[in-house]
């Protein structure tokens, strides 16, 4: 039986490692940083209440929990928007930076953020999970309920689109 202390240590280590990635993942759907943090909080707390002895191999489930919480949030927002007759469509759109960057990386980061905004949601989701979530195609496929081939294709399409958008001269080969 795990002790409170060990559970406490585990979730803190998990938070230190994954919080920025989970936040980035949530911000695909939610433009407000504050709302995205709320979503991550709900998902993270729910996950650790259910799995107090979670090990790193269980961490992909956290992304699934964040995804579920984000979609629930959007449904709630959608109902609210319909009530308010606001036709905004949620996309990756925000005023705050998505990446922590050094000065020399800032231009690349801003270009990337704009390129990510233009990606179809299903491709962006795979790209974020693969690059910054560091998940395997198999894990992403399991998480999204798709085949590995589908996930790999979306990833390739996403990279190709980014190459074309970000710097066609530099990335001529797909």
């Amino acid at each position: 039986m795990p002790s409170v202390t060990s559970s406490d240590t585990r979730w803190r280590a998990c938070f230190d490692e994954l919080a920025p990635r989970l936040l980035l993942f949530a911000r695909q759907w939610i433009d407000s940083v504050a709302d995205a943090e709320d979503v991550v909080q709900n998902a993270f707390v729910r996950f650790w209440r259910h799995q107090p002895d979670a090990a790193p191999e269980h961490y992909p489930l956290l992304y699934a929990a964040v995804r579920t919480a984000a979609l629930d949030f959007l449904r709630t927002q959608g109902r609210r928007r319909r009530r308010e007759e606001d036709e905004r469509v949620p996309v990756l759109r925000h005023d705050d930076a998505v990446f922590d960057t050094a000065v020399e990386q800032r231009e690349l980061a801003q270009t990337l953020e704009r390129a990510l905004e233009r990606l179809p949601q299903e491709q962006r989701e795979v790209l974020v999970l693969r690059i910054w979530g560091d998940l395997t195609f198999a894990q992403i496929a399991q998480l999204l309920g798709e085949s590995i081939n589908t996930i790999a294709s979306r990833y390739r399409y996403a990279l190709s689109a980014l190459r074309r958008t970000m710097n066609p001269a530099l990335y001529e080969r797909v």
Partner: protein
Amino acid sequence: MNESELEKELRALRPTEASLDLRKRIETDLAGTGAEMVRPSAADVASSFAAGRLERRPAVVFGWWRNLGWASAGAAAALLVSAFFRTPTSSAEVDAPTDAATAAVQFQPAGSSREVLDAQDDGLLYDEDQTPQRRLRFQSLERHRWTNSATGAVLHFEVPREDTVLVPVAMQ
């Protein structure tokens, strides 16, 4: 898979840190549930399950909902048939039941179809064994046709239904 230059550049970008406030809020939430944090571990649950001390509930509950759907359809049909043969005056009601019951019995299912209107993936949930499961919801419309061979009457009715399917997820 060889990692391209683009992938390397992307990986070099680090997502922004979460706020300290988020950490504090999570700390507060998890600290308030100390009892939940000392529940049996997943390994304990797994060993109990292997030893037969725990019984895993069926992961897929589609059949239960399907039965409910048909039960609802049957009930709706019975109501419709009884309403169909119900006469509007109270005086006729006294004399009618036998004939109506006989006619209702003569109605037999003659066909049905089901149209899936919408499907939603609700994401992962945890069952009581802490097993992650994906919850899928399907909204559909069943159309049924009953005929009365004695009178040639045809009865059409529609039953909306929602099925919830839980699919176990084995995350490596």
